[in-house]
């Protein structure tokens, strides 16, 4: 067991535990904060997988953008002082059964049941940002442009929908 393995287990534990709390805690604000740790854990796993740029983006976008957005959503839809902030749950028992079934199927039947032809590629130690940038403006330039337009549309659309004037 080397340092790589230890770090992996650490991050995996952070991710899964915090995710568990995200979905199980009744307080919506707690959930949001637990989500923060989940995102961090996933970012750590990305680093372990050699995707340093993706990890940075994960932290910037998710933690800096999405999570803040979600918190705003929580605050706009629930008065903070209100007890209502504790959200209810439903169909817990069937959901537990179903999710366990799903997890079992995914783990044992799909991932472990498949003979992955894994080839250990050498991710260069230097940052991947240069290579990714090159790909984005060569092979994936069309998707890149489209995503830019999409983000613009989303910006306008979200503002329009949320404003909802009479």
């Amino acid at each position, binding site marked *: 067991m080397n340092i790589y393995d230890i770090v992996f287990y650490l991050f995996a534990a952070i991710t899964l535990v915090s995710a568990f709390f995200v979905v199980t805690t009744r307080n919506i604000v707690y959930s949001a904060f637990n989500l923060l740790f989940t995102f961090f854990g996933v970012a750590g796993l990305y680093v372990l997988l050699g995707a340093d740029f993706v990890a940075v983006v994960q932290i910037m976008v998710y933690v800096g953008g999405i999570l803040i957005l979600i918190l705003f959503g929580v605050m706009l839809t629930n008065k903070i002082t209100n007890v209502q902030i504790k959200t209810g749950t439903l169909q817990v028992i069937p959901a537990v059964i179903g999710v366990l079934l799903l997890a079992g199927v995914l783990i044992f039947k799909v991932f472990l049941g498949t003979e*992955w032809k894994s080839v250990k590629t050498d991710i260069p130690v230097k940052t991947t940002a240069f290579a990714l940038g090159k*790909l984005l403006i060569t092979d994936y330039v069309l998707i890149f442009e489209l995503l830019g337009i999409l983000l613009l549309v989303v910006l306008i659309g979200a503002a329009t929908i949320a404003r909802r004037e009479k």
Partner: protein
Amino acid sequence: MVQVGLNHFLIVSAILFSLGIFGIVTRKNAVMVLMGIELVLNSANLNFVAFAKYGNFGLSGQIAALFVIILAAAETAIALAIVLNIYKTFSTVNVDEIDNLKE
């Protein structure tokens, strides 16, 4: 104990996915449902990146992960706008109470 490889990441991803589904299914609050969706998306991303390392795909997996993150951000923005609208219309964000489609 085996060395950490592809399967480890996949298992973490599968568990994360299942938790996300659990969150989507069991939470009443629409915002909580959104959080579950984020978990699911993260598990998918984890798979992309893991296969980018262990499969012979170069950096394409990471590009896909980047795109997913962008889409997730867009999706969250739209979804929250919708949630706000729903809140204004129904004065609630509990998805089980919003079943007008049933009628």
